[in-house]
């Protein structure tokens, strides 16, 4: 895998761009020997993107923080087993991906109780969620909020694997090859998964396009 294929499109921090592979390798070695400051420096290279991805997947800051913690704790516990056969970023995102998948699977099993049914005369659930963004056109805001909610609901209906592949490809801009390495599967399988996700979303959101 080339060195940049796991950089998130347009979101890489200047520090991570400047960090070369030799420096990263040295941090990994020191972290494997138990040096906490090296571990901290190493995860600082990726943690903003990981938190952003978690936030994108779960929506709530509290849950995103939990996923962030769970993922990096797993990394901390198992970094001594990391071998440089794969890139560190691939290995890290594999851990993150698995944590997100587990979360989405749990969420899928309790999906029915998450969105309350709307009784007649009661405000619709999403209407009660405050939106603090300043705006001059309330009608337009309401409309785009509705579209945003429709997209979110459609994404939530994808199965966890399709959801993660779609998030990583469409919203994070990763290459299919990189996603394949993260998922430990072939590029073709990722491609098929992406097609299925796209197809389902087009069916769900067809009237908006």
């Amino acid at each position: 895998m080339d060195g940049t294929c796991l950089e998130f499109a347009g979101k890489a921090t200047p520090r991570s761009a400047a960090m070369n592979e030799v420096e990263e390798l040295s941090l990994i070695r020191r972290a494997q020997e138990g040096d906490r400051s090296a571990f901290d420096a190493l995860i600082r290279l990726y943690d903003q993107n990981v938190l952003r991805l978690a936030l994108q997947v779960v929506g709530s800051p509290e849950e995103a923080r939990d996923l962030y913690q769970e993922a990096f704790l797993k990394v901390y516990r198992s970094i001594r087993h990391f071998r440089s056969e794969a890139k560190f970023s691939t290995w890290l995102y594999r851990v993150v991906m698995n944590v997100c998948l587990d979360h989405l699977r749990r969420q899928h099993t309790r999906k029915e109780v998450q969105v309350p049914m709307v009784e007649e005369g009661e405000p619709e659930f999403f209407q009660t969620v405050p939106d603090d963004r300043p705006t001059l056109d309330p009608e337009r805001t309401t409309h785009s909020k509705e579209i945003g909610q429709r997209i979110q609901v459609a994404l939530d209906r994808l199965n966890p694997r399709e959801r993660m592949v779609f998030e990583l490809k469409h919203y994070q801009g990763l290459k299919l090859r990189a996603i394949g390495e993260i998922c430990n599967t072939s590029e073709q399988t990722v491609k098929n998964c992406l097609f299925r996700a796209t197809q389902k979303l087009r069916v769900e959101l067809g009237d908006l396009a």
Partner: protein
Amino acid sequence: MDCHELQENLPLLLYGELSPWEQAACEEHLAGCAGCRAAREKLDQFHQVLAQRPKVELSSALLTESRLALDEAIESQQHGWRALWHNGLPILRFQPASGFALGLTLILCGFGLGWGLRPHAARLTSEAPEVNSASVANPDLENMRISGISRVVPDPQTGGVKITMDAERRVTLEGSLDDPKIQQVLVYAVKSYDNPGIRRDTLDALRSHADNPNIRQALIYAMRRDPNAGVRLEALEAVCSMKSSSDVHTALLEALEHDANPGVRVAAVDALIDHTEKEGCDVPTARALEHVAVTDGNAYVRLKCSNAMMKLGK
């Protein structure tokens, strides 16, 4: 390339995932096929719809909160049973046979010890060390630190008193700061000891050896987490004397933005100016100074930040 093939490749075309020759073949087909052009337009519109999903804004507060929570979780792991499993008993993890043997030995020793102590168990309380007033002159007892008194029983017949107390013997360690055992004790004192005066003295002793990774980590830890502002300030000064690095810089930014004490925040501004004069001013530093110059609750901190920005030409 026919229409069916093109429509299969259309999503990949929009994602820029096709090879140059596949892309050229698609473009060539699209130029001559109105139906496929319409299909691409539809997919374009669909992508525009997806782009209306609200953007995720990552706040620095959430990032800091997440980092601190992770830090705490790792700290608790380092001192928990997992640390023993990972660091203390590696043989058990990799050699199940020796693990089994050790386990069996421990069980047998437990039974043996239990059996050996059984007849004396009843006498243990009465055989607890008893101290009479004459023993206080004993130099060993003078070196004991009394951590608690559990019972005081006056004896009316003799006019004496019987005191049952928990005491620890005082130990003095002496050695070079290069000695890992000395370092270990001092790092523990910085992180965990409850007396802020001792933590401050320990920081003073450690600062000359800040190149050692464990000491460096302890100094940064104290700067970020010590409950006492004086100790955090001392730690910040020690951290500033360390070789500049990304973790030091991040810790300084955290102190500037989140430390509860204005004195520490002011010291962080000074340290960041020093740091940026040597290394150049990066975007996060400029942003943090700009942010604190406007939002900090303390007028002097705001003024310091504004001056710092002017000094750095921002």
